[in-house]
């Protein structure tokens, strides 16, 4: 290998190493801070690594707030909203691509209009609407408004437009109903699209903060992110407990991310660049 190539690769590794460190440092800082004593955490001269790691901090943080309930709320919201988005998107995408019915184009534009209205612009009327429906501080208030997925409908439509017509025709000639054609011929084909979208949508829902913030204002119905922010406001200066609480919320997501990294990368790229 020529020396210039070795030198160039050394630079590549060095720069990437620095970048990985920039990404990882805050998370490592969280981990060591979570294990420090109350005295160490506010001592500017304390060593980076705690003398006696305080694993008990995690239990202390867990005992201070209803994390179990917040986990449950987040899981209910994350699973239900994701399942709803995938199902509604799959059905609508299929209908818009394959089924012929009057008004299809107009209804497709209505479905896409969801992309034009960012949720952040309508938080105030959304809260009023959900208040009028009596849905504040409820699971349906968290879940139902998030089910329609313009992006999902669009991506599934694109996918089904690319599937061969002959598959369905053969089944129809055998006397299969339209519903049967969808369920047994086309829906199974979409499995890779579902896989790529599922993890990314789930993580988005799991981490959603602004939406729960305007729908929920009780401790009992809070999701994990909200709970964590309340926890912080109660223990403002106990950074070790706050970091332990952050650790409790980050680690499960981190494990999912490591296990599903390929699907996540797939999901980020999917539909974004076509």
């Amino acid at each position: 290998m020529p020396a210039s190539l070795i030198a160039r690769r050394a630079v590549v590794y060095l720069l990437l190493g620095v970048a990985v460190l920039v990404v990882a440092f805050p998370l490592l800082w969280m981990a060591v801070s979570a294990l420090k004593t109350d005295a160490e955490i506010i001592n500017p001269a304390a060593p980076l690594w705690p003398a006696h790691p305080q694993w008990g901090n995690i239990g202390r943080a867990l005992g201070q707030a209803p994390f179990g309930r917040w986990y449950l709320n987040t899981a209910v919201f994350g699973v239900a909203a994701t399942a709803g988005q995938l199902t509604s998107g799959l059905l609508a995408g299929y209908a818009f691509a394959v089924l012929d019915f009057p008004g299809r184009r107009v209804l497709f534009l209505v479905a896409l209009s969801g992309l034009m209205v960012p949720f952040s612009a309508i938080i105030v009327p959304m809260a009023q609407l959900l208040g009028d429906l009596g849905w504040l501080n409820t699971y349906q208030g968290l879940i139902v408004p998030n089910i329609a997925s313009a992006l999902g409908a669009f991506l599934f439509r694109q996918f089904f437009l690319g599937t061969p017509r002959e598959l369905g025709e053969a089944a129809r000639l055998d006397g299969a109903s339209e519903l049967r054609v969808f369920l047994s011929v086309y829906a199974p084909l979409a499995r890779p699209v579902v896989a790529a979208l599922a993890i990314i949508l789930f993580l988005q829902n799991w981490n959603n903060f602004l939406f729960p913030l305007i729908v929920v204002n009780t401790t009992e119905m809070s999701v994990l992110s909200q709970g964590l922010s309340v926890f912080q406001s109660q223990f403002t200066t106990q950074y070790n407990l706050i970091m332990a609480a952050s650790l409790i919320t980050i680690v499960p997501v981190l494990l999912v991310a490591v296990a599903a990294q390929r699907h996540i990368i797939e999901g980020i790229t999917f539909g974004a660049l076509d």
Partner: protein
Amino acid sequence: MRQAARAGRAGTRAASRRAADPAAPGPRAGRAGLVAGPRDRRRTWALGYAFVAPTVLLTVLFSLVPLAMLLWRSLYGGGVFDLAPRFVGLDNYTGMLAEGGARALGVTGVYTAGFVVLTMGAGLALALLLNSRAPGVARLRAPFIIPLVVPVVATALIWANMFAPRFGPIDRLLAALGLPPADLPASPGTALLAVLTFGAWQFFGQNVILYVAALKSVPRDVLDAASVDGAGAWRRFAHVQWPMMRRQTLLIWVVTTLTGLQTFTQIYVLTQGGPDGATQTALYYVYNEGFVQFDTGRANAMGVLLFLISLLVTVAQIWLLGRVDRAR
């Protein structure tokens, strides 16, 4: 599974080409007419309406209705406690702009511009490094997705700790260098920079992943041909890769801009829009007026502007995409 996903994507691409041609016949046109009787057609209609109903109805109820409420109520006076709102014309808009709204729009512009430059610059630079043929480099893509997938509230608390005066790592570093401590999020001059650093850290991984994919789409033989012609790394980038990624760069810009415009959690946890409005963006203004000050008139007026700005970005995307595609 991965293979299948890739096949799925190839299918999607073929489909988008077909979708781009408005003259292409509808999916079942022709043959279906011969095979299906009127009754079958009715059944197909019913199934079609049933399938699109959840998406269409929920979009109307939870996007279009709130949008209509937003536009309408931005013209009506008062806060949530007004029992008989009265028409006030554009008063909410002028009041909003005079009372911190104009400043919030400026902060949003600065933040979003910085966010785009930082995350797209870092994304492209790291993607170029990850595109190197050095062994093992391709695996290093994975760490960059981590900040993207962990809860923002948790990372915001970490960054608050990192910025903490005296015992936070940033002040420790400054002290080690003999510099005075700096409480970055609490000082008006540096608060936005602190939020921006954190916001960019959280998001730039997405642009790394997208630029890696974009670079992969540049055919290797075109690059090799450029090398044979004596082009070095810089000229290959400037004359081959960059022009061939114009379309992807545009799409990445749109997603990044919309994400920057909608930054909320970072500000909510780190600075609450302070100190003295230094980090109050348009969205944070909407939240603060709507849910803290309870002046929903002003909140809605700013919401309308936020909607229009996002719409402008989307329209710009469609227009620019058309230009890029025609230039090909």
